[in-house]
């Protein structure tokens, strides 16, 4: 699926006590005039310093955050947040968005079901993702609060890949991964992009990591795309 963003802008409201009513100052600019095109079957890199707007851009493209200005089109048709949430899967870093008292596999069953996947479909998809992501069978049975940072990161990637979204948005996907798992993951997303026509946006700080997997790399600074 072709994803095109035009003139995206975002200002986070300030955190004063009246901010829920939108009456508390001018806020913090995060994105301004961002145009971006993600083509099917390609992996686009996104890099920039801390606070440049990478995560904000990913969250907007995934439909989790509503932009203040601009539009996003899916295959040429303007899309709202709900359409973006259906089309794009976001993989974020860390365990703080899983149920800590459930096992890894029960978390996958839960989030899979929210996307309409049966337990059998989740199990089948997990089996195919387990090896390239380097997820141990025993890790799947562990409670999330007992997983290492690396294992939790793999679980986050598995959740994003579970539902075969048209676009994959990755926020520092190789963080906490060992070299072998990082290589396996890179190979997997290259394969998915080539075979399934996945449009991938890969955000990372490390230029070498991006050079290995991305056809082109976009630089973002102070909320604006450079060059």
């Amino acid at each position, binding site marked *: 699926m072709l994803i095109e963003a035009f003139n995206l802008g975002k200002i986070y409201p300030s955190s004063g006590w009246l901010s829920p009513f939108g009456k508390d100052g001018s806020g913090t600019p995060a994105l301004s005039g961002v145009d971006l095109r993600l083509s099917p079957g390609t992996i686009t890199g996104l890099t920039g310093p801390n606070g440049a707007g990478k995560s904000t851009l990913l969250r907007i493209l995934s439909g989790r955050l509503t932009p203040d200005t601009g539009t996003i089109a899916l295959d040429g048709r303007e899309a709202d947040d709900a359409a973006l949430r259906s089309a794009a899967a976001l993989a974020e870093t860390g365990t703080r*968005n899983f149920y800590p008292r459930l096992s890894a596999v029960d978390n996958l069953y839960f989030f899979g*079901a929210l996307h309409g996947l049966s337990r059998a479909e989740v199990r089948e998809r997990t089996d195919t993702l387990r090896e390239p992501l380097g997820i141990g069978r025993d890790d799947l049975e562990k409670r999330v609060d007992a997983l290492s940072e690396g294992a939790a990161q793999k679980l986050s990637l598995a959740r994003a890949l579970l539902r075969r979204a048209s676009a994959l948005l990755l926020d520092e996907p190789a963080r906490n991964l060992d070299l072998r798992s990082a290589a396996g993951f890179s190979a997997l997303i290259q394969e998915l992009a080539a075979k399934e026509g996945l449009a991938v946006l890969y955000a990372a700080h490390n230029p070498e990591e991006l050079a290995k997997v991305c056809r082109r790399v976009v630089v973002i600074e102070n909320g604006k795309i450079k060059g």
Partner: protein
Amino acid sequence: MILQILAFLRKDFLIEKSYKLSFVLGAASTFTGMAVFFFIDKLFGRVMTPYLAEYGTGYFPYVFTAAAFFGYIGTGAGSYAERLRAEQLQGTLEASLAAPVSPAVFLTALTAWNFIFATFELAVYALAGIFIFKLDLSNANVPALAAVFFLSALSFASLGIFSSCFILLFKRGNPAAWVLNNFEGLLGGVYFPVAVLPLWLQWFSKLLPVTYSIRALQLALHKGAGFAELKVELIALALFALTLAPLSAAAFGAALKKSRKDGTLGQY
């Protein structure tokens, strides 16, 4: 939709199961709470008799059934905000809402486990009332009671959804829950009939749906009152439900939209 609600139910059951002592201690505290009222009735029950004449029952049957009922409909009032807050603290709120789940399905799924658990607790209450505390519920008018339950649950669920809007927007500090927790029990006739209150507070109690719920429950349960006798209470509850349900749904949708706009769904 069904798959999503079942997924929430299974997840909440597994989480509840992982806290092994929680259920047992919860049941035990319910029982001891009732025992306290049982002995208060022994001491002071007669003082209440004149106020309870219109319900045709004594203090203990009154407070036992009112507390059990209030516990059930209180699930509607309290569980939305409580569950939403838990999802916020775990960081799973935004991840769950990133799925194609409508606000209505999300709200239903979020509290489905609480309602099932509350129904189970209510059944335990009823069995304990009949077999341990020897309550006589043989006069109960079941169709009228069903209508009172339905309208009360809908009104209180709507109040609960309003309450969850504050959680979405402010995270902590929930004035709706504060009012529900502090005034509904005090002014609504749960622990004593409203007639005990000074006149000006009795007037204030008429603004609360719980007042009509408890009165209708007591009359239907102990005196066998039917739809005709409960006309005023049922109409009041229907008006609360019909007003609050669409308003609360719209408020939740607006709060969700605002949170997505501000990027605060993942904050706690």
